[in-house]
């Protein structure tokens, strides 16, 4: 799927967890959400984007969440 769209969607998820003061909790939240609701094709695309393009366009916390929990 167009990476552009996935980036927007992932960043929106990141925005929700942005207000969580605890970094670990927020990253866990982002990763859980992706894992529970995204189809594996979409997860693979976004993980691929993080691995190959340093997650360009993704918010830092989202990149970290993907690196820590999904990659």
């Amino acid at each position, binding site marked *: *799927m167009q990476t552009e769209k996935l980036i927007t*969607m992932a960043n*929106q998820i990141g*925005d929700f967890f942005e207000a*969580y003061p605890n970094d670990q909790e927020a990253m866990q939240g982002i990763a859980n959400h992706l894992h*529970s609701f995204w*189809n594996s094709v979409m997860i693979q695309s976004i993980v691929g984007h993080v691995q190959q393009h340093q997650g360009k366009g993704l918010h830092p916390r989202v990149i970290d969440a993907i690196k820590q929990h999904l990659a």
Partner: protein
Amino acid sequence: MDDIKYTVAKPNVLKYDTEKDYGTPKKDSEVLVTLNIDGVEVTVPEGTSIMHAAQLSGVTVPKLCATDSLEPFGSCRLCLVEIEGRRGMPASCTTLVAEGIKVKTQTKALADTRRGVMELYISDHPLDCLTCSANGDCELQDMAGAVGLREVRYGYEGENHLKAEKDESNPYFTFDPSKCIVCSRCVRACEETQGTFALTIQGRGFESKVSAGNKDFMDSECVSCGACVQACPTATLMEKTVIEAGTPEHKVTTTCAYCGVGCSFDAEMKGDEVVRMTPNKEGGANHGHSCVKGRFAWGYATHQDRITTPMIRKSIHDEWQQVGWDEAIQYAASEIKRIQTKYGKDAVGGITSSRCTNEEVYVTQKLIRAVFGNNNVDTCARVCHSPTGYGLKQTLGESAGTQTFDSVMQSDVILVIGCNPTDAHPVFGSQMKRRLREGAKLIVADPRAIDLVENSPHVRADYHLNLRPGTNVALLSALSHVVVTEGLVKEEFVKARCEWDSFVLWRDFVAKPENSPEALEKDSGVSAEKIREAARLFATGGNAAIYYGLGVTEHSQGSTAVMAIANLAMATGNVGREGVGVNPLRGQNNVQGSCDMGSMPHEFPGYRHVNDNEARAEFEAAWGVELSIDPGLRIPNMLDLAAEGSFKALYCVGEDIAQSDPDTTHVTHALESMECVIVQDLFLNETAMFAHVFFPGASFLEKNGTFTNAERRISPVRKVMAPKNGMEDWEITAKLSEALGYPMQYGHASDIMDEIAALTPTFKGVSFKKLDELGSIQWPCNDESPIGTPTMHVDEFVRGKGKFFITQYVPTTEKVNGKYPLILTTGRILSQYNVGAQSRRTQNVAWHHEDLVEMHPHDAEERAIQEGDWVGVASRSGETVLRVKITERVQPGVVYTTFHHPESGANVITTDNSDWATNCPEYKVTAVQVKKVNQVSDWQKEYKAFSESQIELTGVLPAKPAVVE
């Protein structure tokens, strides 16, 4: 009416007979009163009328102006009785029971007086009983018989009303004043039952007559709910279908297929033809009331546009070929197999609809999970209430509303946010208005002045928080801020019932100065003072209930707003009893049910995640196949992948994504890119124009099943006529499954429900047999609650402790600028339903034959736009042309439209922005520019040409009358 159960001291039960009219409403009281009626002792609750008590004891008192759905009025003087030791003849409908009194309902003097009363009525009434439409169903006729009227001494020579003119303006019923006995039942029905106050009795004495505000019904305030028609004891107000067809001879109880109120109806039949639909007094959701759609707008089931023969074609530019069922099913199955072989198992999927029964949704998701072998199943709740499912599951633990509709009668403060009950959930709207007239306080949070704000008689919002579209979360944060910082939190409740840590996090978050009403004023546009006052009222005004709808969910922060609502309810202790709660008003009839039945790509029936090993193992064992652990694609994901070329086939049951989903151009491009689109529907809907296989579906009158309404109430849908297409919808799905090598062994829809009950803990106790016994059941229904659960989370939240979530306001990226300076928001109106495929094919078009765009006079003036002008509405996605209606209901800077007609192309302009958690589209906020134009948009021209050519390709459908000129 439920039976009255006496206390232990008097263990007998007074039985209610559903067919009987008790004359006055049932009263509830702990105090019991015993009296003697015609020599028989009877014990009833205090406050009961003598008439009602008499009926309960088996004695029928003649009556005309009384009926048990309305408060008594005491005008006809037919129900007179004698009471020992009291003078005169009091009316039994307005006289209450008293301990020890002795009542006589039949004496010579009473009989003479009643006969005299009847004689007067009949002397001014046409004597055409034999040819009257109410013949056999007329209380005046019955009463003339009951009182033994044998002659009428007054001639017709004097003044009378026999020449009064008929009003036939309403498409569904007539008003024939010559037959009116001025009993005012209609007036009271319009006030008490419907709450519209359209009718009055004008004049006095002989001059008095019923008037719809001195206008004909169609031009009056009347909303055509039909309550007056039902209440009228004579042929004065009469359904046109009864006038045409005569009185019905049998009836079947079923459930309305329109909105999420889920009204129960008696389909009154003559053979296999419906003569009228009468709302069922026993209906748990509607108690005998209905709206114009359910009562009158069912003619679509026999509309000439219905397709009843299966059709197939190779390309969407080919002519359709009419084929038999076997051929159509085989063709569809072979295409799915071919595509899966060529492009992989995951290249196919399906969509169910909230218009399907639970059983249909269940078999469709089963087909996709067990036979297609993936979880690519989604439902139209994706585009409406998916944030509700997500948000309430996270916070409270169950993806459903917490209350019954009746709970509103215990509410002291009602917060209505992003919903418009009087238009979209009319019967519940009437009930809410009843409670508001009794004095409950009302807070409305809506960009637009909906009718409840100040356009409903005797109802007025205490606060109208007219926020900017897209700022619900900011508003909810500000309300919460006031609750937290002014010490209005119900700490005992939170301590006992919620996760304390999550509360502390939330409390500290909303208490921040940036979440104060003052700080958020610039975002929401609502004055801080108003928000503070509303928050205080909500937190301290007694039982506070929140009702919300798509104005909350259809935003980029839809899920956040749902969670913010749950936070607010928990913090103020407003969950877990009558009168409070979090109440999502569902749009379509079976939104709740279709979600319950596992139509979302990540969960099985009963909201169990596909990666929950225990749940998956249960389904694998029952279905005998291995199931995928991977959450499937959602509708927008399917469409994106289709447009990119990797998603190739779609089985679309009862849903019309080409009209209802956002960014139409993208949707139709995706549909065109697929190799096999299978549509199952009553009509050649917009999506079917892009289909390769068309399975004709059955209407709700032609099949068995269940719908689940917004209060989790499972109600039976019953077949009243044979399906014109030859099969019920679940049978079609089962046949497709069989053709794909997986036979489904069901003999009847009830077998499907048995399987659902066996696999879904919250449905464990549900069966068709129990539904027949109880009428309807609110899930959870299991060993602990064998007859269902009206109020949820009573002692404990479903997830154990309630969980607070931090709900940071994130403005939508859809922003106004110089090029698109206005915000477009969308909604619906009473007479039409969703994409309108059904309601547009009824006479409801008399009220709404085109979608209009509402604009504030200030914005109109700036653009030199006048009422009724054609205007182009352009967004970043596209442009369409609509007619304009200038009104102060919308605020400056905001325009509003409905989306009931495909040629309006409302979704040509909506964007692909969506909710962060569920991808529910942001229908409610689109930046647009509006300009005066003199011709339709390019999209509309193309649409018109395309849809005309598609209709021609069927070879069977009549050409469509052009609506947009």
